């Protein structure tokens, strides 16, 4: 970014500084460590100068916000137009209780809903399934049929809010339920805004709530792309997630590399299914983690944006600029929360949230201080939401677009992460794509190697975690944690029985058998699922039919 003459002059000046001023200081006071590393373990130099970014070309590599390659942001005015969406992931117990929490969050200034489902729902089991025992309503809300969904969004106008649903393997079913609820509210599908996570590959890699094998899972995903492009055009049909990959222990570069490799797999699958890249790519969205290392994280977000733009343009020949824009949701890193001195987590979350904002996120969830102990209480969630509001309203970081651009360190780091991520993508291509690399256990092994290394650094005190391996104090057990009453499971079972008694069981059977036939063929499954949902077929019944036809995924484990 500088002319050659100027650079060689700078280089000489740096060398003089090194042998002079620096050497003198080092001889008197050596640095505290031989090597300084980021949270991801990559080496950080003492000083970054124009020499470190000499290969960067402003127009080619940075450009202007809202323009290719979108390094500086996906939109020209960023937070000067409006702040990011403050979207708090919430849901527990029954639809009734979760509905109350949503109404509270909206009243407190939350601008988007984010639904957490319990594990049986995420894995396509009804609350009365034997494997659901002990899990109903625990990590999210239990949804068994359209009835629960009606209760969940009762009194919340679906044309006014945007709703994100963390649902993957049975995403089609939950989306169908959402569409059906909207219809009952008199809201047509084209008015609906929101996101389904719908990212099965990272479930295989890191999160574990898979149901079907890869092939039918990819079909369900492309069916959704296709259906939504025609009927629910404002819906983000997938949230390609690095969050859980990072939570599983990956580095920042792995998070970008593996997530974008998943993204490539979805784009390829959709193209193979006959869709034009520019019809569905604008509705792809991403979901990243915001970890502790502030600068590394900011660089990561910028690198991801740039790399995706290049992939979409060069590899997939997208023509619509919207296809090249990487829009993303961010959640602060749950894995950094400590059970010890839980109030410290407020500080961690604040810095991580700041990194996400400086990196240009479109929406943000801030974790609550007590999440290493249990589901968050209302008080804790409020503090987490206030953290975002303070960043947006008090710190001034929103006043200008991409404020850290041009920092030698940030730009060098952005380039480094982009390059490393690209190396992973190349390696995955060599193996035959993301699905195959997952099948071989390659991605999982890379992540678990990083996780183990990170843990060993904590064990050896090479890495300090305040309150855990340094500055510990005797603590009393925290009080007032949120508990989900086991009665929830009974209530859900009762509701299922009521629904089954009241619905038209003949119609249900017919719709399910039509769905089964469609599964065996090649038609788009969404209309069949929607029809079954409307007759109050349960989630477990619908997924059961699909399980019968598709079989179940078997996990590849390499440790």
């Amino acid at each position, binding site marked *: 970014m500088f002319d050659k003459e100027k650079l060689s002059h700078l280089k000489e000046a740096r060398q003089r500084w090194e042998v002079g001023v620096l050497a003198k200081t080092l001889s008197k006071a050596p640095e505290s460590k031989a090597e300084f590393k980021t949270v991801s373990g990559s080496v950080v130099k003492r000083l970054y100068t124009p020499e470190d970014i000499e290969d960067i070309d402003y127009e080619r590599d940075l450009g202007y916000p809202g323009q290719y390659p979108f390094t500086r942001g996906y939109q020209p005015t960023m937070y000067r137009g409006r702040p990011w969406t403050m979207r708090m992931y919430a849901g527990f117990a029954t639809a009734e209780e979760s509905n109350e929490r949503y109404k509270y969050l909206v009243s407190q200034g939350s601008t988007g809903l984010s639904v957490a489902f319990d*594990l*049986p729902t*995420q*894995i396509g*089991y009804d609350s009365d399934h*034997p*494997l*659901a*025992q*002990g*899990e109903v309503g*625990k*990590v999210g809300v239990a949804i068994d049929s359209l009835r629960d969904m009606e209760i969940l969004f009762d009194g919340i106008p679906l044309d006014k809010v945007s709703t994100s649903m963390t649902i993957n393997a049975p995403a089609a079913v939950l989306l169908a339920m959402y569409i059906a609820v909207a219809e009952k509210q008199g809201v047509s599908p084209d008015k609906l805004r929101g996101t389904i996570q719908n990212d099965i590959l990272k*479930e295989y890699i*890191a*999160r*574990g*709530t*898979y149901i079907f094998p890869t092939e039918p899972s990819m079909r369900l995903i492309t069916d959704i792309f296709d259906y939504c492009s025609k009927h629910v055009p404002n819906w983000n049909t997938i949230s390609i997630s690095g969050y859980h990959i990072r*939570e*599983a*222990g990956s580095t920042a570069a792995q998070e970008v590399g593996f997530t974008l490799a998943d993204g490539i797999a979805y784009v390829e699958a959709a193209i193979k299914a006959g869709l034009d890249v520019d019809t569905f790519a604008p509705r792809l969205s991403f979901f990243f983690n915001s970890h502790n290392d502030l600068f590394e994280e900011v660089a990561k977000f910028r690198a991801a944006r740039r790399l995706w733009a290049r992939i979409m343009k060069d590899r997939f020949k997208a023509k619509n600029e919207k296809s090249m824009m990487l829009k993303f949701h961010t959640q602060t890193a749950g*894995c950094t929360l*400590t*059970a*010890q001195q839980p109030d410290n987590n407020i500080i961690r979350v604040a810095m991580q949230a700041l990194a996400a904002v400086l990196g240009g996120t479109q929406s943000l969830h801030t974790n609550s201080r007590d999440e*290493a*102990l*249990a*589901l968050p209480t209302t008080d804790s969630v409020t503090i987490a939401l206030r953290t975002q509001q303070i960043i947006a309203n008090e710190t001034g970081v929103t006043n200008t677009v991409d404020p850290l651009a041009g920092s030698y360190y940030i730009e060098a780091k952005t380039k480094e992460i982009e390059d490393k991520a690209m190396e992973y993508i190349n390696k995955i291509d060599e193996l035959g794509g993301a699905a195959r690399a997952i099948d071989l256990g390659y991605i999982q092994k890379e992540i*678990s190697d990083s*996780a*183990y290394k990170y*843990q060993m650094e904590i*064990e050896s005190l090479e890495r300090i*975690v305040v*309150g*855990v*391996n340094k500055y510990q104090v005797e603590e009393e*057990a*925290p009080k007032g*944690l949120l508990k*989900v009453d*086991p009665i929830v499971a009974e209530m859900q079972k009762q509701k299922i029985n009521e629904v089954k008694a009241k619905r038209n069981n003949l119609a249900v059977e017919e719709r399910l058998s039509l769905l089964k036939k469609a599964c065996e063929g090649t038609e788009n499954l969404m209309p069949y699922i929607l029809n079954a949902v409307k007759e109050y077929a349960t989630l477990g019944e619908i997924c059961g039919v699909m399980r019968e036809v598709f079989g179940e995924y078997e*996990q590849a*484990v390499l*440790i």
Partner: protein
Amino acid sequence: MKRPIRVLIAKPGLDGHDRGAKVIARALRDAGMEVIYTGLRQTPEQIVAAAVQEDVDVVGMSLLSGAHNYLFPKVVELLKEQGVDDVLIVGGGIIPDEDIPGLKEAGVDEIFTPGTPIAKMVDYIKNNVKR
């Protein structure tokens, strides 16, 4: 040659977060133990069958979903039914302190909460195996 301690590491229930379980499995291997890893979504019945057939010294369970109060005691109960009384049973994950006494009463020998140094777990196992 001294017999290595055999440990079953299991993920009961539907929770898919296996970072902790995998890290522990590796750490125990590096401490010289034979670790039998059974993967995700294990029912208590499967865990107990594996523990019996593998004749392990330790059963370790990791759970982050909050279903521990149901699943951990269920495993203990089924082990007892099979007449297995000399296996050390440990659990870990997101487990509130207030749940720990109840779990211990149910027969879980020790609970490790987030932030417990691995060295401490290894020592605990080495010092407390029952045979």
